């Protein structure tokens, strides 16, 4: 061990989950005789400041040894923040079974793994099973496509009693970006070609998707299902509205579900996790899960020590305790553990397995090309929500799509790709 062992811990919602992991890390380091310096990463301003901190620290030769987080890996790797950890990933897969294709797609590039899968996280569509039941609706069937989901939302809306079906915003936020991207992908919109060199965004599919979004938020036919001010929501708003019991369908990270369980919200057991609607053309489910990863920071002189800690953190006893603490929210990162009762007895956890291990992987925004920093930059920006806002304000959709395609081309070029 060289100097202090410096570790950054991501805070997940569940306080018990955080406390347990911190205890495990502290205990392990203590038994190893390491001088541990551990700190939480703030969830306050997203990953931008964390990246700035780490880039600064790495460039100044003052980096922490390791950390875990669920951030997009590509940008961090492109900034030279990570050490490859392929050896321990292969070792772990050999011991615990395959990890998710989603993990692979988001963490393995340039022939190296840049993070070790730590624990999966549920995330996607959440609905109120009790309200669906009241109206005689089946969440899985009646939300199978975005059209069906919209119709269902309208049916279950009761504005007079402050109950609205459609808890999805397209305002500037992480959730808003998802809520624009996902319908577009279902309409067949593609950001790039299969080589990841050219932008292919300007297409009839993209235009059709945006028309659908415009219709949803501006056609009076759907007004009844929209909570007032839905397009002023930021990332916290749908959590707040869902937990207050005013919306019945939303799309979110599992934090909201975990919060409901932890706070013993009266309808917590009625919160159902379902796959997002399928693709219009072939009814194919496009979701794929990933989650938190363990990373070694570039320049760390304690890589072997980090590996020892990582091995402990993905060991069965630690993983089982994580599942017990946050059932249906934390998911096993490797295949073998999915057989455990700790997964199978919780419907939301069980429902996640087909999404963690889909028959055919769809890689989201990057599909069908590779994950590049340019794709990460576009996905992490506000382009999709800004585009939706312009459409909702009445600008011609074709013009908007053309304009944003040009922006994406410029970003591709900035990152050294052809663009067009």
């Amino acid at each position: 061990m060289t100097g202090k062992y410096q570790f950054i811990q991501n805070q997940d919602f569940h306080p018990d989950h955080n406390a347990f992991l911190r205890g495990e890390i502290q205990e392990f380091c203590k038994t190893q005789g390491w001088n541990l310096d551990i700190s939480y990463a703030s969830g306050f301003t997203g990953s931008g400041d964390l990246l700035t901190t780490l880039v600064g620290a790495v460039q100044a030769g003052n980096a922490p040894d390791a950390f875990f987080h669920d951030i997009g890996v590509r940008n961090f790797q492109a900034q030279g923040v990570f050490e490859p950890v392929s050896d321990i990933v292969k070792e772990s897969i050999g011991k615990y079974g395959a990890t998710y294709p989603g993990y692979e797609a988001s963490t393995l590039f340039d022939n190296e793994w840049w993070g070790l899968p730590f624990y999966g996280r549920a995330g996607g569509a959440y609905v109120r099973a009790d309200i669906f039941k009241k109206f005689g609706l089946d969440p899985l069937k009646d939300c199978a496509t975005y059209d069906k989901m919209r119709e269902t939302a309208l049916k279950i809306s009761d504005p007079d009693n402050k109950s609205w079906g459609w808890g999805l915003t397209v305002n500037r936020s992480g959730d808003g970006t998802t809520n624009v991207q996902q319908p577009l992908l279902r309409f067949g919109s593609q950001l790039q070609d299969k080589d990841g060199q050219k932008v292919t965004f300007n297409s009839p599919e993209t235009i059709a998707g945006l028309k659908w979004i415009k219709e949803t938020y501006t056609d009076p036919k759907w007004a009844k299902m929209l909570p007032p001010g839905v397009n002023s929501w930021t990332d916290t708003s749908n959590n707040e509205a869902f937990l207050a019991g005013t919306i019945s369908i939303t799309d979110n990270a599992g934090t909201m579900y975990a919060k409901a369980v932890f706070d013993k919200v009266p309808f917590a057991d009625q919160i159902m996790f379902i796959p997002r609607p399928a693709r219009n053309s072939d009814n194919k489910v496009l979701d794929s899960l990933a989650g938190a990863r363990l990373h070694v920071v570039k320049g760390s002189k304690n890589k072997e020590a980090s590996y020892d800690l990582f091995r402990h953190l993905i060991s069965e006893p630690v993983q089982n305790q994580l599942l017990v603490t946050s059932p249906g929210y934390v998911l096993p990162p490797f295949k073998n553990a999915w057989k455990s009762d700790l997964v199978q007895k919780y419907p939301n956890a069980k429902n996640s397995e087909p999404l963690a291990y889909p028959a055919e992987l769809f890689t989201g925004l990057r599909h069908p090309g590779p994950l590049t920093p340019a794709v990460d930059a576009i996905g992490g920006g506000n382009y999709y929500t800004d585009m939706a806002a312009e459409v909702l304000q009445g600008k011609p959709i074709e013009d908007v799509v053309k304009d944003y395609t040009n922006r994406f081309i410029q970003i591709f070029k900035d990152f050294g790709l052809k663009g067009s």
Partner: protein
Amino acid sequence: MALESARGAPPSTRTTQRTGGFRAASKRLLGPDWAVAFVFAAPLVILLFGLIGWPLLQAVYLSFFRVVGVRNNGFAGLENYQRLWGDTQFREAVVHTVKFAVISVFFKFWVGLAAALMLHNIKRFRSVFTGLVLLPWIIPEVVAALTWRGLYDPVFGGINQLLLALGVITKGIAWTGDYNLALPAVILVNVWKGIPFFTLTLLAGLKGIDAELYDAAAVDGANSWQRFLNITLPGLRYVIIVACLLSLIFTLNAFGLIYLLTGGGPGGATRVFSILAYEVFNERRYSLATAVAMAIVPALLVLIVILGKYMRGDPGRLEAKESTLSRIGNWALLALITVISLAMLVSMLPLALLPVLLAAIVGVAFLVRGDRLGKTSGDVNMAWLRWTVILLGAGALSILVFSLPFFVVALALFAIVQGGLIDYLTSNFRRGQRQDATTLSTADYQRKLARVKRTARLSSLGIGVALGLLLLFELFPFYWVIVTALKTDTQIREFKSVFWPAPFSVENFRYMLQDTQFVRWFWNSTQVALVSCLVSVMVGALGAYALVRLKWRFAGFLSTAILFTYLLPGIIILIPLYQIFTNLKIINTLQVLMIAYPTFGLPFACWLLMGYYRAIPSELEEAAQIDGCNHFQAFFRVILPLTLPALLTVALFALTGAFNDFLFAYIFVRPESLTTLAVGLGKMVIGDIFPFGKMAAASIMMAVPVTAVYMLAQRFMVEGLTAGSVKG
């Protein structure tokens, strides 16, 4: 004038006795007090230029390359700037920034002035009321933003609930979700948070106006509006201009509040410069991000050179001669502005920006030719009228190609920063004074005075009502914070008992005190705040003394240059700063914050102290020197004790800044044992879940001691500001 005797005056016989040798040559070249001045100004120069100036130059350099992530794809020349000017989002950001800044400052100024007038005229509980009005300024930005988000919530927010209850609306309004309402909503919060700054500085200014002037004017038959127009406004001229300029600079660079309230949305409705730069920065397109940030530099430079002029002294009373080096500095600024302006023009600068461009050139011309313009001060300055006509012409052209609102705000900006309007108003008063010099009998005088006082009593009722409304506006969000802090998570989540916690709970306070490291965070922030206060006070006091009281060549240029710290959003210089602090081996210590925080408050501190120093008669210092004191002894034994109120004011400003900062504390200090309050609060936010109740409780616990200090110290603060702001 102290300033005139201190700077620019002919070298004294004492300093010219020796005409030969290095000493004499250096004194001729650098000024008689250069050696002492260098020592006094060194901490200021090292702190500001080492930590801000150097990274700033790096940023400028970066903007001419194609740096994306860790890759530098080569020299780009003006390409990054060219791309911006052709970009609709950038143009929108320009418009939003100008609208946001100008409208905010306009309302902050007028409401702040009204508040100051009201507070100035009340006799009882002035300290308490002033302390209450200051509250929005004290609480951290994150808490202010979250509070207003709660108030703006379209379904359950306090504002909609109130309006619904009053029957004003029938359906919740999406204040931050409507494309047309979002910017006004954000401006309102900025105004709310910024009023106290104006109130405090203007209150100090009012205190400096001779009360007999009002009595005399009243006796002369001036009504309250005329008295306001002819006494108050002219009396506040200097403080108005400096406060407006400072506020305009702060507001042009505003980031946190907007980011936390709307993130720049909906769409790009509230995307200002700093948000756009942050977005592009987060995409790791560093050169382009820097270009975005640098694009505002010409406008800021204009403001800064003018502010610098005012900080060095009232333009009307400036010394006749500028030193050669100051002229070189000013010409360098002119060259910089010209280069940037030409770059804009080359890259299809919209004609609508011409007014700003012209204002830049006028500003620098004003600097360079300040001696000539200075002679005309006090009357309507024909030069300004001439330039205004030229601007109107340029504006008319700009209307053709751009939009009327932009030109209007650009012109308003110009009018505010140049103070031409105030000059005009003051000239009326001066003419009036000359014309109305009449004699009154004592009896007439007493009669008229009594009538005026009767009117004043009647108007006190109006003052009370207006003050009540102002306090309602300023304090309603605090009511919301208190109510939120006393609710359980369930009550907050389900929006139960919206306006009153029933039952109320102290669980959030217990949680903060027992289950978090709140006390440690508070202690860390206190340490940082106290030491950074000390650094601000010491460095500011020494630096301001060197700039005002010592005779040396760089004083003029340096006075303006210290304001350069305002040129760039913090995010752009974080990485170079990180490396500097690492090399200094202070990263991950509280010392890094103790050194970094004063950099942002120093220009303001210098302004305050420079004004104060100017007000101290130079005879005191000269007497001390005759008694055998050197400059250092005279400073520490004579000058410093006289400036205690101003030093206290600087300390309190620094204290507030240190308690509020999130970004630097988060980036530069990792160990949890060293977490400060704002970062501690930030770390309570996990993912997309905000613990509103706990953050509200924490805010109250943070605000109470700081508010108490303000209430106790505000009398001294006003005194400190009075000399600095009014007697400049």
